[in-house]
């Protein structure tokens, strides 16, 4: 996948203006590693991407790609970054505040795990990189905790935007960025095609993931995850339907199908996840290439 930050309409091969392409990587925890497989196919086919949009765990992969990291580098960094260790440090005071809110105080900055390890892992991977300075244009989405609106970050520190985008409810505290208290991006749109539509992309490659339903409900945590999956999957469909109808151009959905169940931090499965991402992209490739060959200005049809 090649991509360079530039002004004006993108230049194609032979100096001919080509269609503006956006890649959207939706929420999906470690399943977002499938985007590595997608990137490998795009790179092999020399498909240029002008904008990358990432949400929740997808924001990490989006940022690494926007930095110009190779697929192998992204896979290695993801395996180190997205581990169960991130949520290993419990915040006992916060947990007690659930049952004793008046005694211990309870507020909007609630989260049952310390984010110290997350911040440290993000700092190691991204340092002080700024979104506006990356090789490819990047947008990271989160959700404004107070208003429910989607927050889109296209400038500022990469680590701050990602921390906001992966603020999993109940697990991590909402994060404050530019004066906005933000929570996980999946709560406003698990597959944020909207920013790419607004940016004028002609062809939007949207890799999304459906949330697993629980095999058994035997704890409050699993009960909460089940509710979250129900809401997220319905939100994914309704937002995707809206964007399909509203967008002037093309949206190509790539939704990998996993035969094996993938856990939230199942980093050992990353090679398999990448394979499925590659397989799903290959299936869509003929259609994608045909769309990219269509002349600029040819609307997305009806």
């Amino acid at each position, binding site marked *: 996948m090649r991509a360079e930050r530039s002004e004006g309409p993108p230049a194609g091969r032979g100096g001919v203006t080509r269609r503006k392409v956006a890649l959207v990587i939706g929420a999906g925890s470690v399943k977002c590693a499938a985007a590595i497989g997608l990137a490998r196919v795009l790179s092999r086919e020399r498909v240029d991407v002008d904008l990358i949009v990432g949400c929740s765990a997808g924001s990490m992969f989006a940022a690494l790609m926007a930095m110009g990291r190779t697929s192998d580098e992204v896979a290695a960094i993801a395996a180190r970054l997205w581990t169960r260790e991130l949520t290993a440090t419990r915040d006992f005071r916060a947990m007690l505040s659930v049952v004793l809110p008046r005694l211990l105080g309870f507020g909007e900055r609630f989260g049952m795990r310390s984010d110290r390890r997350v911040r440290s892992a993000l700092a190691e991977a991204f340092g002080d990189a700024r979104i506006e300075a990356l090789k490819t244009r990047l947008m990271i989405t989160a959700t404004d905790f107070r208003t429910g609106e989607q927050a889109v970050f296209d400038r500022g520190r990469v680590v701050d935007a990602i921390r906001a985008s992966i603020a999993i409810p109940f697990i991590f505290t909402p994060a404050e960025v530019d004066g906005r208290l933000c929570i996980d991006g999946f709560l406003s749109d698990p597959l944020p095609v909207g920013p790419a539509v607004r940016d004028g992309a002609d062809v939007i490659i949207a890799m999304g993931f459906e949330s697993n339903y629980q095999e058994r409900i035997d704890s409050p945590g699993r009960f909460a995850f089940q509710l979250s999956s129900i809401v997220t999957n319905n939100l994914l469909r309704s937002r995707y339907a809206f964007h399909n109808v509203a967008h002037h*151009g093309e949206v190509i959905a790539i*939704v990998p199908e996993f035969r094996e169940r993938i856990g939230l931090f199942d980093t050992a499965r990353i090679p398999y996840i990448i394979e499925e991402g590659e397989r799903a992209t290959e299936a869509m490739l003929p259609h994608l290439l045909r*769309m990219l060959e*269509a002349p600029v200005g040819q609307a*997305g*049809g009806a």
Partner: protein
Amino acid sequence: MELSVSQCGDVCVVGVRGSVDGSTAAQLQDTVAGQLTGSAARMVVDCTGLEYTSSAGLRALLAGVKECRRHGGDLRLAAVSGGVRRVLDLSGFTGILRIYPDVDSAVSSYAG
């Protein structure tokens, strides 16, 4: 994309082969609109040979459904394959369209 039009009683069957995307969606939409005369608001789109539909194809189908229903009829899908079905599922279209396993059952659904 290749289109074919045939008549089964008072039901118009539009066969779609290949891929519906930005370069072909208008043709599909025009074909459906062109059949909307008299009782032909009863329509079946035969998806047996449909390999893929992009968002532009979905918009064309939706426009066809709205037009048919506005004319007191309907547009129903038949023989939708796995990949196309997945796109329809993901975009919520399966909740608003009637889909049948084959053309015969789609055509006879109008008799009920």
